[in-house]
């Protein structure tokens, strides 16, 4: 006799929650939030490099998820669908900010250091926080590419498509991110 795979039970439970949430049950949606918020917040935090901004982004992700839930047909796992939605929300916000920066501060290079990036980050909890803090200090595009590639596992071509930039540019941002991280971590 073979034991049931617990992942099947988890998937069935998630599918049931999604079905109830699609019918408008906020308790079911809250349960989905509880099971996914940590990963969504981690993605938003690493891509934005700022806790307050990450909070706003995560908020927008879940509000958007609620609105789009009727269109979720279950071809992929809910967590996968939500993850893609989160990436899109963050990238949309970054594009908007770049447009505003270009309008308000002509001549500002999108990868120029900002005062926020130069702030001193107090690290006293070991290597992992050193690395998290170093990632947060990266320029926006370098950080975005690095997180999508190294943390989230996206391919160069997928990142290029999502960010509407050339694959060669993705490669350049990734290599720059690694160089900067090594500099930050060696200080």
């Amino acid at each position, binding site marked *: 006799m073979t034991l049931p795979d617990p992942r099947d039970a988890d998937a069935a439970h998630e599918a049931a929650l999604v079905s109830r949430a699609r*019918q*408008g*049950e*906020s*308790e079911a*949606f*809250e349960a989905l*939030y*509880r099971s996914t*918020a*940590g*990963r*969504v*917040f*981690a993605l938003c*935090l*690493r891509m934005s490099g700022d*806790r307050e901004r990450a*909070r*706003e982004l*995560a*908020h927008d992700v*879940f*509000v958007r998820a*609620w*609105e*789009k*839930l*009727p*269109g979720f047909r279950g071809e992929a796992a809910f967590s996968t669908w939500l993850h893609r939605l989160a990436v899109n929300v963050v990238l949309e916000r970054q594009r908007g900010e770049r447009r505003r920066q270009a309008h308000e501060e002509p001549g500002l290079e999108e990868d120029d250091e900002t005062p926020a990036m130069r702030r001193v980050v107090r690290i006293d909890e070991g*290597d*992992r926080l050193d*690395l*998290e803090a170093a*990632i947060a200090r990266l320029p926006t595009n370098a950080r975005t590419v*690095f997180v999508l590639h*190294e*943390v989230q596992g996206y391919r160069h071509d997928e990142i290029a498509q999502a960010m509407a930039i050339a694959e060669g540019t993705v*490669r350049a941002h*990734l*290599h720059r991110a*690694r*160089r900067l*991280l*090594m500099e930050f*971590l060696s200080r």
Partner: protein
Amino acid sequence: MSMHLEWDRLNDCVDGRLSAADEADVREHLAECRDCRSAVDALRALGAGTRALPPAIEPPPGLWQDVAATIAAGGARTGKPLSSRPPDSPPVVPVRPGPSRRWLAAAAVVLMALSSGITALVLRRDGVAPVPVVATGTPTVPTPVAAGGTAPVVPASFAATEAAYLDNLAELHAAFVAQRHALAPTTIAVVERSLLTIDAAIAEARAALVADPANQALAELLSTSYRQKVELLRRAAESSET
């Protein structure tokens, strides 16, 4: 010929993006060059360390409450609390193909108009009420009912949503007015300018929706504008508490 491998080649080596011929050259170089070997080791260690980062980070407290409040403000078509919505009642913003080019263009026109100087008073157009402004320059909560006038009617499917937004905005706006003394003048100025812009956008979107009640893209645009105002007032209130 360079003494050491270029940074891009070292990265491509680690990512497995070299051609077979290039890879052979790089391997040959690495066998003889300790510095380049160290660089490759460091790159691999960086990748391993990054992949070992925890997949989840505890979100800040109160995030769910904010999400739930925003969703509630978005409201159900029935106007009932979310948890008691009947099964056949979809969320207020149904999923569908994005707005048509025509309405995206219309939205762009609205934004251009706003950025070029629409200020406190949005003139009546197609029966839409003006957005009143109090003497301080602070926009009041926009109300679809003009003083002494007849309210242009939004589609029934949006009426409950709008009522929920207006209730929520009334509370948030009262809190903002009550906490003005705790805010820096520059913050107040920024919030008030933003409110004027959002109010103008709400009035424009509302007028367009009244004129074209079946247009779901406009309903979504109006809902988004209301939601932006909720978020702005909430953040203004938060900044007065810090």
